[in-house]
């Protein structure tokens, strides 16, 4: 290569490094490209006493800020129970060997959500290959290339997203009551469609039953794993706003949670269902929408559950 080309090549390399660094600091990288991966990439707190696993609702529902113990939120958005099992196996060395607590939050449809194979690219940045179902070397090479060079995959609209979030820092306004009603209807409609159900009263399909069986297997695996390692497992259902909790009839709750409660009871595990807890479900100021808690709600809920578990 002639010296001038080398100079150009080096300058392009420097610009690429700077752009990659900027993209990695933006909202798009952490929330759209590799949602919730960063906290695992940087996690380094040994002897952690309490962690929660979980999916989207758990990402929103737990906030340990200011609490007097080493705790962490290990939930990821759109994360199935298979993901919880993989995360626990990968990060268990950070837990206090003398005794720690794992909170396993269940979404209303945890039982039906199956495994979400194949796992998304973000899991390739936080999990050991053998714990990623459907792992392949080729996919890993492609995923690592994206993770190291996000600028090459940055969409044209990404700069607007990052700029907007930089200015407004994701401040969510609480919805009005009528919006909460509509939001709940939309969510229930979306879930029923996703899991191929007409309503909660129709018999479960073979596909649904398979997914339930797999979900229960993952929970059993987690419970056994915890027992072998002096970890206390707790199963919980985070709260939702009343417009959403009303949508779940007694029969629906039986279908969605009874199996988990039975496993918990058979294994001496605490099971607490906060779905319709009066402290939270009637207070709109604790929720971003009918399903997800906001910061105020997360802090109140986290404090409540740790108090109920006598951990603070």
């Amino acid at each position, binding site marked *: 290569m002639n010296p001038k080309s080398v100079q150009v090549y080096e300058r392009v390399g420097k610009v690429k*490094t700077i752009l*990659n*660094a900027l993209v990695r600091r933006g909202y798009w990288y952490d929330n759209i490209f590799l949602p919730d991966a960063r906290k695992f990439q940087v996690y380094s707190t040994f002897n952690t006493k309490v962690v929660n696993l979980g999916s989207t609702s758990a990402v929103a529902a737990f906030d340990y800020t200011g609490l007097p113990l080493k705790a962490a939120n290990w939930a990821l958005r759109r994360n199935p129970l298979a993901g919880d099992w993989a995360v626990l196996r990968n990060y268990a060395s950070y837990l206090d060997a003398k005794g720690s607590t794992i909170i396993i939050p269940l979404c209303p449809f945890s039982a039906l959500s199956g495994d979400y194979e194949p796992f998304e690219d973000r899991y390739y940045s936080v999990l050991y290959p053998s714990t990623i179902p459907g792992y392949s070397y080729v996919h890993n090479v492609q995923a*690592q290339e994206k993770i*190291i*060079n996000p600028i090459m995959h940055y969409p044209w609209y990404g700069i607007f997203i990052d700029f907007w979030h930089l200015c407004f820092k994701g401040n969510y306004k609480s919805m009005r009551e009528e919006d909460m009603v509509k939001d709940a209807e939309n969510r229930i409609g979306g879930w029923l469609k996703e899991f191929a159900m007409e309503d909660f009263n129709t018999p479960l399909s073979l596909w649904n039953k398979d997914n339930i069986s797999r979900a229960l297997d993952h929970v059993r695996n987690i419970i056994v794993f915890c027992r072998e390692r002096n970890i206390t497992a707790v199963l919980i259902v985070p709260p939702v706003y009343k417009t959403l909790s009303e949508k779940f009839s007694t029969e629906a709750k039986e279908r969605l949670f009874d199996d988990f409660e039975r496993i918990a009871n058979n294994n001496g595990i605490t099971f607490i269902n906060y779905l319709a807890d009066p402290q939270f479900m009637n207070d709109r100021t604790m929720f971003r929408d009918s399903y997800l808690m906001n910061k105020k709600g997360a802090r109140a809920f986290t404090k409540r559950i740790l108090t109920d578990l006598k951990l603070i």
Partner: protein
Amino acid sequence: MDKKEVLSKLQEVFREVFDNDEIEINENTVAEDIEEWDSLAHVQLTEKVQSVFGVKFSAKEMNSWDDVGEFADSIISKLGK
């Protein structure tokens, strides 16, 4: 990229991570030669190098380098693949 170029680029990284423009490194430089090189800096250094060179190291590889020369050899072997 040959070893000389890698060492030159590494020197820039070292100077940035340790915030010291006077740092001079060579193949035989070890942690004891640089006052600011502690365990946290070691992690920051490795992350920065992965980012700058576009390579990835396993935990085992990251802990296997005795001196800067071995660090550079690891980078070269990855760039070559």
